[in-house]
């Protein structure tokens, strides 16, 4: 657990760098995290994924798997990897301010 100040707001992160309270999230925080994750500008397509992840987390209490992401968000797998190089489910979850998805156990 660590608390960081982002855009003058205290934000809580777990040991792996996921926000612990998704309600503290806003677009400004998302952009800061995205930059740290190697994505300098969040495009509309990024936000389609990020918003889908937040909606899933809100209703189900967990982020979606990649399979669910591609099936439900309408963003094809290849594009997901282009948008979030190195691991879309995890990276998009970080940027979306939700906990690490359980899909990988």
């Amino acid at each position, binding site marked *: 657990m660590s608390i960081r100040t982002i855009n003058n707001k205290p934000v809580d992160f777990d*040991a*792996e760098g996921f926000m612990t309270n998704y309600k503290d999230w806003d677009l400004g925080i998302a952009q800061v995290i995205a930059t740290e994750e190697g994505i300098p500008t969040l495009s509309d397509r990024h936000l389609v994924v990020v918003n889908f992840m937040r909606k899933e987390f809100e209703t189900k209490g*967990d982020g979606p*798997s*990649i*399979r*669910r992401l591609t*099936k*439900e968000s309408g963003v094809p*797998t*290849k594009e*997901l*990897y*282009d948008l979030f*190089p*190195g*691991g879309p489910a*995890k990276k998009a979850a970080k940027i979306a301010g939700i906990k690490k998805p*359980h*899909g*990988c*156990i």
Partner: protein
Amino acid sequence: MKEFVILGAGTAGTIMANKLARALPAREWRITVVDRDDHHAYQPGFLFVPFHGYEPSDIVRSRRRYLDRRVLFAEALVERIAPDQRRVYLKGGRVLSYDFLIIATGTRPEPAQNEGMLGAEWHKSVGEFYTLAGCTALRRQLDGFKGGRLVVHISEMPIKCPVAPLEFAFLADAYFRAKGMREKVEIDYVTPLSSAFTKPKAAEALGGFLDARRIHLTPDFALARVDQEAKKIVSWDEREVPYDLLVTVPTNMGDPVIGSSGLGDELNYVPTDRHTLLSKAAPNIFALGDATDLPASKAGSVAHFQADILFENIRSVIAGRAPEAGFDGHANCFIETGDGKALLIDFSYEVEPLPGHFPLPFIGPLSLLKESRLNHFGKLMFKWVYWNLLLPARLPAVGTHFSMLGKRPGPISPIQSPPPSPPPSTPQLHEYSHHQ
């Protein structure tokens, strides 16, 4: 007469059928278990078949034989589950009505989900060890392997027994050392995860084990396709890993009938409450073991712990009470590390694997997250426990809930992984397997 129908006579379905048969009065309840065949495979044994630890015939027994006499066994494929009619339609026309239904249809590799995996080289230079046919074919491939790149690979999470591919890599290292040809084999462990295992402390320890065995780790590799012609796997971000022998774990999915009956998620797993284990499909449908969408390991130990909880909750539901017993994600598993040694890990939804002792706090005799011969022996002994205590549901209900007693949560020093000892002259697995 009230009807209890259980779909699946694997670990979860068999344990549950036997528990219910003893608890529900035979005058009032009929318990019927459905499965497609009468071959119950001891699935932890699949891992050892390629390395001559077990013969395929050692690990398959009759499903019927392990069901209580009061349980009816229907050998048939399920065509459709109709929750609104409270009926299960079987292939061949038979229809089973139920008052309560348990879905314990497990999970299985679905190589058709992975582009290029099923081709002329399937079960040849593209092998797997999650089916009896697969692990038997893989033995021939390993025996004939002249050297080159062995790639052990996971396509997509979640998979059944998430540590098995690691164990395969460890056992392959020991196997090629014993054959005196380790120098000719490059082993690469390719995973969609960011490290060797899902839980950080165990990943750290297991990562050390990979290094000590000169097994290369390729993390964050999400499979886009298998190219059988060029003998390489390609990720979505266009990375390529060449192989001479690929040992893959295909995408795992639940039974297609779960999906076609409208009861499943995108992987055909049944949405299930993570604590009460009641399914979200209908109040009289329960799900157990690998068939659920729970964020717990898909493993026999988990099915066993879940069965204890679900059994209590089913009794409550039948009696018209609210379910109370809560599942905590408890799982434990042995991890074979080669050379007749194994690790044991014990964890839950909330607590990752920690060092300590099991099953008795501070005493053991098994040590957690630490390599030992006793753990390996424990793993082999488990085959006897499985057939004789676990399936008949005669294992004392010790350890259903995860316990912190005897575990050391503080910062741990990296687990020392001594360089592997010289290869044994005879494969040790074989030696033990005769005694079972």
